């Protein structure tokens, strides 16, 4: 029996999760919600995490009905993400590792998402679409690495959605993306937006500036409703994502798709991806907001895999890093 506690705080969520041999024993989290029109800043976010991390740790242990003595190792997010929030969490993880005298494991956030998705859905060797506020990548496992086949060449899809939500002054509660999704359900008039796929890469910055500039005017002139714009935005960016995923599948002869990351719980994206999969006899794997959105269990799960193959982090290396690419980590736990 191996039990791992995982700490995640690379962006605006702070989460503590406990995993025991593939079972999620606890996974509480708290989100830093900013006022409408505002993004989250590093130092305020770090302060938020500091305020909640210890009570979440207690809550996780209580929900899991275990004591700290039963934990085998402590996993924390090493990066990528915002510096100050990452450091806040790493400091607590290091302190607990000494207090409890447990090994410590620095986890790549993106790999946490992938491993959690694989655990929950039992996908064997999927082409992974990783979509969040900071990342947009199409990933496939090959020869001990998660290789990035396609990615955004400018901003992430979640960032594109969030920034448009800010233009419309949508609430950040529970998240701007969720509110765009709800608005889009009531949109029907489609506005053609710049569609930019380059090989297996995508670009969203042109589309974002187009809709940022034209959007408010079109609403003012009553040509489109804000709902129509959310709808058109989703239809366009998700079509781009599905297209590059399909390109990667065709390239790698893959029959499985796994969607992970915060944008991955968008049901319209899942529906579009499912249709694409049906057309090519492939299977879609997706999870809901408990596991798509940043959480502690995903870090615990990646830490679990690493721990089992002896990938414990030497003390001097228990740092954080704002940039940490998915393909930098050697995946010794997969064949």
């Amino acid at each position, binding site marked *: 029996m191996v039990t791992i506690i995982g700490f995640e705080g690379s962006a605006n969520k702070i989460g503590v999760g406990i995993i025991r041999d593939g079972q999620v024993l606890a996974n509480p989290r708290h989100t830093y919600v900013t006022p409408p029109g505002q993004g989250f800043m590093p130092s305020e976010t770090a302060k938020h995490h500091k305020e909640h991390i210890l009570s979440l740790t207690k809550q996780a242990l209580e929900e899991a009905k275990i004591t700290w003595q039963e934990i085998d190792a402590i996993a924390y997010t090493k990066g990528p993400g915002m510096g100050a929030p990452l*450091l806040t969490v790493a400091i607590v993880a290091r302190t607990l590792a000494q207090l409890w005298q447990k090994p410590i494991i620095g986890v790549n956030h993106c790999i946490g998402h992938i491993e959690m998705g694989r655990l929950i859905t039992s996908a064997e060797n999927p082409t992974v679409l990783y979509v969040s506020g900071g990342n947009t990548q199409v990933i496939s496992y090959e020869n001990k690495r998660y290789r990035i086949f396609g990615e955004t060449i400018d901003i992430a899809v979640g960032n594109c959605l969030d920034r448009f939500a800010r233009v419309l002054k949508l609430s950040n509660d529970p998240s701007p993306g969720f509110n765009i999704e709800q608005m889009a359900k009531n949109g029907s008039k489609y506005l053609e937006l710049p569609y930019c796929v380059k090989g297996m890469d995508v670009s969203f910055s042109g589309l974002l500036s187009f809709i940022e500039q034209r959007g408010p005017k079109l609403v003012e002139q009553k040509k489109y409703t804000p709902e129509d714009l959310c709808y058109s935005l989703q239809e366009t960016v998700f079509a781009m994502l599905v297209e590059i995923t399909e390109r990667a599948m065709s390239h790698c002869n893959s029959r499985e798709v796994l969607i992970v990351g915060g944008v991955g719980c968008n049901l319209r994206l899942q529906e579009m991806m499912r249709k694409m999969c049906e057309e090519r006899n492939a299977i879609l794997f997706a999870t809901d907001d408990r596991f798509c959105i940043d959480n502690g269990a995903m870090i615990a799960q990646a830490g679990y895999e690493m721990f089992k193959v002896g990938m414990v982090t030497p*003390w001097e290396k228990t740092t954080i890093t704002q940039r940490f690419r998915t393909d930098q980590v050697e995946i010794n736990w997969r064949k």
Partner: protein
Amino acid sequence: MNDLLTAQLTIPFSCQKHAKIVYETLRVDQEPRKNLIKREISLNPSSVTVAWWAKESRILRVSVQSIIDHIHSILTTIHQFE
């Protein structure tokens, strides 16, 4: 080296164990802007001393503040989970 701003902070702890945890936790991280600020941490059985040399007061202030925040965070963690 005369034009550098300096600061030094010595924090006593109730026992050597706590001092050691604080020291070990803090010594891992490097200052992000190494050419503008230098930081050294040392452990004297039951206290920790942090010393800074910086080119700008703003950078010095940010670093001192963040070290104090981290120490606070470490101590709270110790008190709640020891």
